[in-house]
């Protein structure tokens, strides 16, 4: 039986489930429905999760392939005490949310971006987000949100904590 770490918790994976996509495993087996299914063919980015620090499309990953790895889903982004992560706050404040179906994927992609670069240009943000489709917002307020999040993280010294791997955020 393999093991998988999701949002800082360990799960034992039944052999029969190893063949499932990570997306279906998260949603159907663990009830972590914050990760969305927009296409199931690796195009829309709604299913984005973070695997060992990098954004990945969970619909294109077999559970088998992520055994022993550390996974962050949208449910694990807020602090344990329920405080929002600065990226989440920024999405709320910048009006970056409409239907919200792309939002979890957008937040996780932004999370990965800001872990590497806390001072991205708008152009760099657009580039980083180009694998995440949004049909509602025209992206502008999402780019605003990521800029705002970067500023919040710089101002509050959130940097170190998100940069070190395995640390809780």
């Amino acid at each position, binding site marked *: 039986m393999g093991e998988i770490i999701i949002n800082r918790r360990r799960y034992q994976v039944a052999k029969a489930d190893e063949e499932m996509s990570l997306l279906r495993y998260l*949603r159907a087996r663990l*009830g*972590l*429905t*914050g*990760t*969305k*299914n*927009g*296409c*199931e*063919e*690796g*195009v*829309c980015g*709604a299913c984005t999760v973070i695997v060992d620090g990098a954004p990945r499309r969970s619909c294109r990953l077999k559970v088998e392939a992520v055994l022993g790895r550390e996974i962050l*889903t*949208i*449910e694990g*982004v*807020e602090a344990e005490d329920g405080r*929002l992560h600065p990226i*989440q706050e920024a*999405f*709320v*404040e*910048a*009006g*970056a*949310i*409409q*239907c*919200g*179906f*792309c*939002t*979890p994927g957008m*937040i996780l992609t932004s999370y990965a971006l800001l872990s590497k670069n806390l001072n991205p240009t*708008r152009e760099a*943000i*657009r*580039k980083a*987000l*180009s*694998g*995440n*489709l*949004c*049909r*509602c*917002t*025209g*992206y*502008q*307020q*999402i*780019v*605003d949100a990521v800029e705002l999040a970067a500023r919040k993280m710089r101002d509050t010294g959130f940097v170190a904590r998100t940069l070190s791997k395995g640390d809780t955020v």
Partner: protein
Amino acid sequence: MTTGKRESAYRNDAVIKVTGRARYADDHTFPRMAHCVPVYSDFVHAENLSVDTREAARQDGVLKVITAADIPGAVRFGQIERDYPMLAEDRILSHGDVVALVVAETREAALEAARQVRISADPLPPLIDPEEAFRPDAPVIRPGTKNNIVNHHKIRRGDARSALAACDIVIDHTFRTSFVEHAYLEPESAVCVPRPDGVMEVYGSMQHPFTTRRFVAAILGEPLARVEIRTVPVGGGFGGKDDTAAVVCARAALAARLCDRPVKLTYARQWSMRESYKRHPYVLHYRMGLNRDGRVQAVEARIIADAGAYCSTTPWVTWRSAVQCCGPYRVEHVHADVYGVATNNVFTGAFRGFGSPQVNFAVEQLMDMAAEKTGLSPLEIRRINMVTQGAETITGQLLNNHTVSIREVMDTVAEKIGYEEKRARSSRGKGDPENLYGVGLAICYRGASLGAEGMDFCSAVINCQFDGSILLEVGIHENGQGAESAMILTLQEHLGVDRGRITYRQPSTSSIPDGGPTVASRGTLMGCGAVVLAAKKLKKIIAEALADTLGCAPEKVRFQDDAILGEADDQRLSWDEAMRQLFLKRVYPYSFAGFRAPAVTWDEETGQGDAYFTYVYSCQAVEVSVNLKTGRVRLLNVVAAHDIGKAVNRPMLLGQIYGGIAQGMGMALMEKVETEGGVIRNASFRKYRIPKAMDLPEMTALIIENPDPTSPSGAKGIGEPALEIIAPAIANAVYHATGRRMDRLPIRIEKEDA
């Protein structure tokens, strides 16, 4: 006028959406829930359909395989004509038709068994070209009809033929638009639960709970009161989760009723794109006549819209096209015919814009062409012809009950982007062929809400609790646009209370009267209208009950600063105290009010009448660069201005504008549903590309506010105006860059060899 300055946004559903807690339809599960999948045929057009379900039914885990014969209620339904088979009966009219449903313990088992359903039929030649289908000798597609014409709207004003003959200049041009997919990010999904009390409860990804309820009740053959549609977050709709999504809910309800278990039916992206209706492709033939001074004298138009295999909302969509077929211009002589024509293509229906993006694409280019022919600037020719305060529209409506601001709106955009100066330095096909530059603009007015196409009313309930908290409920559905937040903000303003007191109670179809569909950019207008009226009633109830305590007449009671005040500021009850007093007096601080849209009129024969009770005014301008070697058009800048009456929630308003522009840009430059013999060739996100963050420039949105007297809150709508003129603005910019007229969507530049 105000610009898009940062202002912290308010949304009641923001936190659940950034934490993954929002539960969309597919996120619901129930004990003993079974899974359902649709079965399609390979046919586009066929008769003598027979479906053999025996083998599929024998597969492991299969609970039931359902065909049309199992439907206890109506097989066919629709919003206007009841022609859409929720499961195909004896014939196939399009590649999107569903012939059976497989219900199984797991989705995998259902998918597996679906492959075992045997389908046979006698194929018929598909009719897929709407212009062919329009011909009198064309074979008739829909049984029981005389020809393929779904509807015909007319505008008859003056004498267009003679007027055209007398014009100095006549521009004769044909434009074509294409099939476009809504591409909401969340595919259709429904979970239906047969409740012990006999009611069928539905959690669906749909735009219109009440439309959905009609479909579900129809397929089950049960009364409306025994179907309860619950409100859950929807992952985008844009008009596309109207009948299409209602049918998905109806099928899941059918499976749930027949298996007597909760059933989930969640669409794969490919099914969604195969089956859901699209934006109508139009062929628009215009003859526009004008005098040398630039005054448009007459317009003749013949417009054909491809309705696909079923009626859906085609008559309503094309009605709007007819009303707005001359743009926001005064024209004395108009002879227009707009037809919806049936073909064997996947059907077409509501899509943000609803028949206006297509006519705007033609009209706004015609205006630029006319400018060129008369030697006027595109701004001047628009100024000469545009509607003004008190002017008469082409349907004979006097625009005198609200501020007609199209001039202000256009001038604002033109100045902001520096239109005239940029037009002067546009390339016109000269210069570096890999980097030609152009600026372009388009304007429009849009009739607010449903107009003469529907019954327009909506209600709200305000239910104040004795502890000071407040429940608000409105018959408008949150589609992701922020409708609930707009209504909360409206109530806050009108009651003068702290926002924190207000909880939006997500209505179900059993808790509030039918408020009509959340379409036609009517959510804010109608929903907030009902909230304002309900707040008025509530204040009257409270004022009458507390006037004595406050020592003044009820009319003098004031509501502000989270308190209720008499004439003097020291005669004051905090909101909490006021609610406690009402409890002691045994008075319910509860109100219900309906807002009925002002009357509209229409004459089908002449196409004359007061089509809409008010209008939204818009202008958008863009800068582009065109590379003739690669054929690529890049959008460099967008400036948009819209007079929406009043901004209720500014950041959300801006979001609607940006999002509408992005969708319109997709339609203009990227998106086309490719069909071959009625079969969609790009029914996946891999093949059908929508705009990404990198495809869009930074946009500037300007909000112009002239509070509208016909709207209790002063607000109109923005959802659709934002989308409907970006394509012609881009086409006009491409013309100024290249000197080539783009009369087809999406815009394709023929590559020049290096």
